[in-house]
């Protein structure tokens, strides 16, 4: 993206923050409910300097990474296997369809019973919730491969294994990638909620604690950090896709 377009894209959020700051300083807003952004940023630097933010952040990200990694690994294997093996599809698909609509947070009390209040319960819930988009997208990705590509590969002399490596793997990658990206987003949503329900450390806990102690500026600082993580990682995913899938056209423009 050109630097000029970046500038345009920065303009509207920047204007919103400035307007908010001005309104707060002019006394139009209740400080307890809407603290000035500058106070939130000041508190953010305190959080950074004291090391509290890193502690919370590393605890949350550790849980997210573990759950996300499990979801991706299990999801890709299961989705691909279900797409290729009819029997497996018929056995697993109903289980997926029954579990999928259940809010992961409904299962969280159960997860705490099973895995305790530490990392285990969060990782379990993330792994479960995030595996669904990976399973479904991998499945669709493998099924979506043009049957003529298999025929072309075989008639060129490819063995079953060569066809799997040469056609199935690269062919399902765009869908798998979409599934993984969705899984990451779900992981970030679930971790915050889970940490608000039952945790002693983490970004979600930090935000909840800030609310309970009426430190609204910290609450906003926490929300800002959460948003920033999602924003930054999504840019990372897009870069990664352009790098991994240079041939893929999302839409014809």
């Amino acid at each position, binding site marked *: 993206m050109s630097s000029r377009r970046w500038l345009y894209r920065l303009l509207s959020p920047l204007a919103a923050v400035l307007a908010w700051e001005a309104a707060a300083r002019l006394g139009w807003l209740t400080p307890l409910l809407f603290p000035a952004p500058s106070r939130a940023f000041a508190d953010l630097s305190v959080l950074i300097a004291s090391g509290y933010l890193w502690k919370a952040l590393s605890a949350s990200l550790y849980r997210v990474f573990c759950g996300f990694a499990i979801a991706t690994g299990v999801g890709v294997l299961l989705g691909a296997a279900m797409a290729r093996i009819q029997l497996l599809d018929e056995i697993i698909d109903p289980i997926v369809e029954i579990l999928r609509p259940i809010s992961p947070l409904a299962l969280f009390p159960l997860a705490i019973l099973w895995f305790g209040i530490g990392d285990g319960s969060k990782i379990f819930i993330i792994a479960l919730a995030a595996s669904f988009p990976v399973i479904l997208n991998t499945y669709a990705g493998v099924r979506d491969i043009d049957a003529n590509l298999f025929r072309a590969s075989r008639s060129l*002399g490819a*063995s079953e294994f060569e066809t799997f490596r040469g056609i199935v793997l690269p*062919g399902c990658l765009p869908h798998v990638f979409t599934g993984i990206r969705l899984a990451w987003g779900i992981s970030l949503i679930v971790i915050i909620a889970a940490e608000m329900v039952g945790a002693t450390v983490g970004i979600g806990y930090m935000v909840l604690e800030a609310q309970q102690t009426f430190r609204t500026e910290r609450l906003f600082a926490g929300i800002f950090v959460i948003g920033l993580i999602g924003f930054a990682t999504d840019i990372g995913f897009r870069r990664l896709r352009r790098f991994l899938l240079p041939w893929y056209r999302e839409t014809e423009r």
Partner: protein
Amino acid sequence: MSLTFPGRGRRAPVEVLRDVNLAVLASENQPIAGPGRERMMVFQQPALFPWLTAAGNVRYGLRLRANRANGNAVDETVADILRLVELDGFANYYPADLSGGMRQRLEIARALAVDPQMLLMDEPLAALDALTRRKMQREVLRIWQETRKTILFVTHDIDEAVLMADRIVAMAHRPSRVLEVRPVELPRPRQREDREVAALVQHLSALLE
């Protein structure tokens, strides 16, 4: 010569030739047991691998275990074949970035890379617009003249058959049968307006109706 085709839809003739006994047409007079690399298919809708570049698509077949014995100068073969189909400037383009005619040429290039004895073309030009189609007819003829591969070319376009073929097998369906086998000995390049070409087109049209 007699060939019968079980009614399996539009694609039947070439599928049958690929799969079943083709002793009559096979150049070595050996019965054909199943699909094989000696007879490469070229489809109406190119089945190119979208994640590979033009060069990658041509290289795919050469890299397979079954074809590795054909020689280790893979990159040279790829370059030669892309030049043959006049895609040498597009080696690093993905299929999505090529035009319809270019994709069809790339499909032919990929088939030629594994050095088959025969190309089975199933209405390869039917999806192209009229102008591109004419151009591709000349292209296929040029590639044929340079490589001397036997090409079995299925078409519904009588003009196309008369302009291109050495031998035309006119077929009807329900019941599937061969109506006429007609060698075409007219000199090339042939023009639609040539008297003999027009006469043969007329004859075949009448026969097929």
